[in-house]
């Protein structure tokens, strides 16, 4: 956990009073809606179909129990008793009133939470591996650097009015859980031959209308140069990124139009001017940030405690353990993923009661810490293995022990037409129907790892391009239709999915997905060949043939 110091606290308090003044001026009519729009967006406030939506930042997906309780309080007091966790490790409240927003922000500021730059054409919440600091084999905790970047990008005087939004993601593990290749800037932390920390810098990834996988602009940027290098990239983008067309304004288009070599040259030239400026990170500065992160004092625990041995006789516990519990870097501890994808539920939603209960469980079993992953699930990062059986029972009581992590019903979906004014089609009911179709755990387990991603429009908030199965809602003659792609992935081998055939109407989507899954079961070489690997091996054609033969 990063603990705010006086400077961090002062800044968010000042931000709250600034926003209070802005809301007051809007309500009095002194500000036009057009002028206010950008100001509210920079504080995470969207106007959606039915109401204002309020998006709160959870930097690099780390929350304390105290913070989670405060989010529950906001859900209860200012909203309708629930919140929605997003693919940017944020949380959204969908029914908030404009006049209440300054108070909600002030309540959150008390526990070190803000909503700065969770929307608008600026640098968004810096995301990272939800297992940062606890994953076995990690090079080092990437959250130190995420926090350095969070501070650097917050209220940046030069980059708060960029051509378009701008997203960072950082990973420090070989297996990329942060989807860095679909970000404007992706950072892979690694060490050079001298053992010094630095980053492979990738640039120009993104989804939306023009999905592109990020390209490496520099294989190693030393940690001390991280901010100057980032500033060079952003300065080139701020000046030359397109502003004539909102759909061509992301940095990926600039990188694509210039070519990565030319873009890299521009950045290099700019960087040489500023790399020895005040942006150079002194070792003491990095240490100062590092020292504000606290880590649990782990006990010396056995690898296989008696409690776990005993509980192994319970098939329901075992099913959950095998699905939701992952290895921790410290012996005797585990990382527990908490699925927010119950059968028939909207992906990523949690009620205020669940949040409060989970905060208590985090205090009891996870050193008061909770993580949010971009898959719209939560995690308890430091659970002693001997506590797993008790934790499982407690989670089950509050409806948070669905054993479907990474399985076919662990669906990522945007809010879609049920909430969003941009959407062409509904996402949530499609996800709900699919979780019902694949509700049988044994079937889901037999299918194995399979990521379904659903977006209700081309803006791709549900990351459909990089779902193993991607579902994109489009509008055709006033009706909801869905395009289906397969073979996408967001990890270190990131790839965009390929369309398998013509789009299908709303009420046929679940049937088609079932057919795709059946085709996979028939086509896979061995029971442990994953869906994504079968598609890679065979291509789209055999799937197309099987799924569309009778359509």
């Amino acid at each position, binding site marked *: 956990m990063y603990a705010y110091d006086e400077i961090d606290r002062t800044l968010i308090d*000042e931000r709250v009073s600034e926003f209070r003044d802005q809301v007051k001026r809007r309500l009095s009519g002194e500000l036009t809606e057009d002028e206010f729009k950008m100001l509210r967006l920079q504080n995470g406030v969207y106007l959606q179909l039915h109401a204002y939506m309020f998006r709160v930042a959870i930097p690099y997906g780390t929350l304390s129990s105290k913070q989670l309780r405060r989010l529950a309080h906001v859900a209860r007091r200012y909203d309708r008793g629930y919140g929605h966790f997003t693919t940017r490790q944020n949380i959204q409240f969908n029914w908030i009133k404009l006049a209440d927003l300054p108070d909600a922000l002030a309540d959150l500021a008390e526990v070190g939470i803000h909503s700065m730059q969770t929307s608008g*054409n600026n640098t968004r919440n810096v995301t990272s591996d939800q297992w940062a600091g606890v994953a076995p084999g990690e090079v080092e905790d990437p959250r130190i650097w995420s926090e350095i970047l969070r501070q650097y990008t917050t*209220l940046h*005087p030069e980059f708060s009015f960029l051509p378009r939004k701008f997203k960072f993601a950082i990973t420090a593990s070989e297996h990329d859980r942060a989807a860095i290749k679909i970000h404007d800037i992706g950072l892979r932390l690694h060490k050079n031959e001298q053992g010094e920390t630095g980053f492979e810098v990738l640039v120009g990834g993104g989804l939306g209308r023009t999905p592109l996988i990020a390209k490496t602009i520099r294989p190693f940027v030393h940690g001390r140069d991280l901010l100057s290098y980032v500033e060079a990239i952003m300065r080139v983008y701020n*000046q030359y990124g397109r502003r004539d067309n909102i759909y061509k304004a992301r940095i990926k288009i600039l990188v694509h139009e210039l070519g990565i070599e030319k873009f890299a040259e521009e950045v290099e030239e700019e960087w040489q001017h500023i790399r020895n400026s*005040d*942006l150079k990170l002194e070792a003491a500065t990095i240490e100062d940030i590092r020292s504000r992160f606290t880590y649990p004092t782990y006990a010396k625990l056995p690898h296989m405690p008696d409690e776990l041995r005993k509980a192994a006789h319970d098939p329901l516990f075992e099913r959950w353990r095998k699905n939701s519990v992952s290895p921790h870097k410290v012996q005797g501890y585990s990382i527990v993923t908490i699925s927010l994808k119950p059968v028939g539920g909207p992906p990523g939603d949690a009620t205020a009661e669940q949040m409060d209960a989970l905060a208590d469980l985090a205090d009891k079993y996870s050193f008061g810490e909770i993580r949010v992953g971009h898959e719209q699930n939560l995690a308890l990062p430091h659970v002693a293995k001997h506590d797993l059986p008790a934790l499982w029972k407690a989670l089950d009581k509050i409806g948070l022990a669905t054993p479907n992590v990474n399985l076919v019903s662990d669906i990522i979906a945007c809010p879609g037409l049920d909430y969003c004014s941009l959407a062409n089609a509904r996402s949530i009911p499609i996800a709900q129907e699919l979780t019902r179709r694949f509700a049988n755990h044994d079937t889901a387990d037999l299918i194995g790892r399979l990521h379904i991603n659903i977006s209700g429009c081309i803006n791709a908030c549900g990351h459909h391009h990089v779902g193993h199965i991607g579902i994109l809602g489009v509008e055709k003659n006033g009706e909801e239709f869905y395009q289906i792609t397969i073979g996408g992935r967001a990890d270190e081998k990131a790839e965009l999915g390929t369309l398998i055939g013509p789009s299908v109407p709303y009420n046929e989507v679940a049937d088609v997905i079932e057919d795709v899954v059946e085709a996979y079961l028939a086509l896979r070489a061995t029971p442990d060949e994953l869906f994504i690997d079968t598609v890679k091996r065979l291509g789209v054609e055999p799937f197309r043939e099987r799924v569309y033969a009778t359509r």
Partner: protein
Amino acid sequence: MPLVRGGNISQDDFVQLADDAPLPEKGAVLVSAARFLADPQVLLQRSDRLGVIWPNNRDLDDLVPHLERIAVVALVFPTFRDGRAYSQARLLRERYAFRGELRATGQVLRDQFVFMLRAGFDAFDVKKQTDAEAFGQTVKRYSVFYQPTGDGRLAAPFRRLQLRHSESASL
């Protein structure tokens, strides 16, 4: 539009000159980049001060050689959403050491003042009278800053190191 300079609403002593308007013999003038570049010498050799309005989609290269003899560079925000002039401002101040007046023009609204000050602007052609009047209050909104820029305000990383030093010194 009210001009805020040195933190106060003040009289603009520059006359903005259309490209085809005759050049007056006396008085400070503000001209477009096109007019300036067409014949820099005729403008620079006048005894009165010169200001140039520099568009936000043009590199500064053609302006830089003349900076020492220019009193005002006016940068443009065609809408407040277009942030290119922030980069130009920082480059002029921090890289090219421009010490004259750096004026923000266009859709300049209250909620950009702090960003603009931090980027190096010191004069503001403010769109609304009420915003201009609120200048003094608005720029006090923030007392801490995360990023080092050339505006002289102490950014968080340095402030922290100072704090830690004084903490350890007082032990």
